[in-house]
């Protein structure tokens, strides 16, 4: 018998496969038994009600996509009154993704969602901090440390910090998040990108720019997950461009303890359950009994010592 379960801080997940925030909702239950997933991660919510960005909110780029949804949110009350009760029917742990424009707003929301039925809070610190020139909290170690400390003080639930690839200081930011009290890191969110329609000369997204996700992001996000796994002691949850079981293995080997699947679900809504089945078959075929046989098994040897902290391409 193979055991697919993984440990993320105090939380035991039945398998390492879960959806990425914003690419999953109750609606996926129309297609598959979401109770088979390792965890259930909500779209990021904000404290108040928000409409989100102008359309078009998505566009396709070579083998991947851009989005600029803009966190439309029904607010915290809807979450507590409707979303949490809905997920009571499932035993896969509910992870709520939250975000705020200021540290205080963020911390208040963190407290407000710390209700029974919520297993962990994923803090989307890849969103702009309007108190500090609009850069995302997770772009700098200092603002990361700051916001994580306040969030830590606001809840006793496990805190997962979701990092951004839009930084040159991945390792430092990861350490700051750990120091600030994160129980795990989710690595990573989308990469800021742009596309222009040559005919109309207009940006393809209503909001001018948006986030790159899908296969193009994978080598970048994998590099970050690897850097983070080397930099911190808390678990890393890999995210970015995963669409096959091989992609999952790449992240696990690089040091991630679990992974999130995002855009791939748009292409194949049943991708996650297929991956879970394939992962189990892989374990059997290669005689692995538990996930820790795979996690962090990268053969980086000498190379790792010299270039782990390299944050620039040659």
């Amino acid at each position, binding site marked *: 018998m193979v055991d697919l379960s993984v440990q993320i801080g105090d939380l035991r997940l039945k398998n390492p496969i879960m959806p990425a925030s914003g690419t999953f909702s109750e609606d996926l239950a129309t297609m598959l038994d979401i109770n088979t997933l390792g965890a259930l991660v909500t779209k990021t919510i904000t404290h108040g009600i928000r409409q989100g960005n102008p359309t078009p909110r998505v566009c396709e780029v070579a083998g991947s*996509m851009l989005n600029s949804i803009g966190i439309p949110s029904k607010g915290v009350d809807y979450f507590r009154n409707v979303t949490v009760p809905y997920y009571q029917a499932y035993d896969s742990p509910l992870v709520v993704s939250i975000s705020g424009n200021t540290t205080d707003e963020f911390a208040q929301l963190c407290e407000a969602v710390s209700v029974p039925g919520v297993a962990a809070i994923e803090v989307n610190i890849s969103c702009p901090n309007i108190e500090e020139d609009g850069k995302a909290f997770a772009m700098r170690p200092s603002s990361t440390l700051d916001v994580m400390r306040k969030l830590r003080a606001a809840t006793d639930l496990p805190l997962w910090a979701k990092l951004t690839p839009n930084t040159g200081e991945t390792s430092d930011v990861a350490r700051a998040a750990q120091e600030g009290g994160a129980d795990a890191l989710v690595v990573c969110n989308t990469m800021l990108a742009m596309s222009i329609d040559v005919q109309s000369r207009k940006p393809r997204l209503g909001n001018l720019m948006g986030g790159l996700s899908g296969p193009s992001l994978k080598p970048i996000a994998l590099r970050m997950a690897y850097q983070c796994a080397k930099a911190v002691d808390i678990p890393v949850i890999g995210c970015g461009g995963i669409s096959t079981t091989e992609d999952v293995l790449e992240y696990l080997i690089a040091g991630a303890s679990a992974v999130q699947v995002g855009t791939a679900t748009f292409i194949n809504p049943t991708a996650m359950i297929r991956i879970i089945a394939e992962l189990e078959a892989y374990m059997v075929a290669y005689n692995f009994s538990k996930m820790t046989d795979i996690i962090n098994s990268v053969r980086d040897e000498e190379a790792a010592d010299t270039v782990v902290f390299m944050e620039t391409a040659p």
Partner: protein
Amino acid sequence: MVPANEQVFETECQVISNSPVNNDYRLLVLAAPAEILNCTPGQFFHLQCPVREGLQPYLRRPMSIYGYFPEKGELQFLYKIAGTGTAALATLAPGEPLNVVGPLGQGFDIRDDWQNLLLLARGVGLATLAPLALEAHKRGKTLTAICSARSPEMLMSIDYFRDLGANIITVTDSEETSGLENLEKLIEGLIATNGIDAFYTCGSNRLLKLLQTLGARHNISGQIALEQQMACGLGMCQCCVRSFQSPTGIVHKRVCKEGPVFDLQEAMGW
């Protein structure tokens, strides 16, 4: 947990045929299992268009159901080549697989107390309205279909509607009969002679406005199928929203989930 008629499937179907209907449109016929053919007119599927040299669509493409026939296990789409995805779709040969997700969204509603239905369709809109016509026929409704096109040769599905016993009126740009003024006169005529209980239309801003005006003037209900860029097609990503009038002000609804069919008066021009 999910009611059977809300169940959505990801299924690999097989192409039976895929051939041009006229210069612009092609008809794709798939062999499909009965379980995915429990559809409502107006619903759509999300198609994973094939990857070819130089044509590498990534996201799925939404396509209205042109025909669903559980008895013979067939699913049909009527489509126009618009870009990469549909160009790739056009290369599919009989026997090849096509991965489809669906049926998706909310379809048209035919209330029991509606008897005289008016369809107003142009281009791809015919694809969306064809199964509605079939359903109306099955339920013994009286159907008038105003079919609009650039020119008489571009008119599609006329025979299909005629076989369903529909009263067909064709209007075309080349004959200068498709203008708003003429359409308004036509429809006012229909309302005056037989009476109309509901309008059904698709897509165009121009037709939306006309039917909204006529509907308000004569208190006639109506529904419209709308389009929007989609990623997931399942209601998860929030990318396909449009604005709608509601008692509480303007609200966003997802075309893939609350739509693609919406109340005519709630829909907003764009």
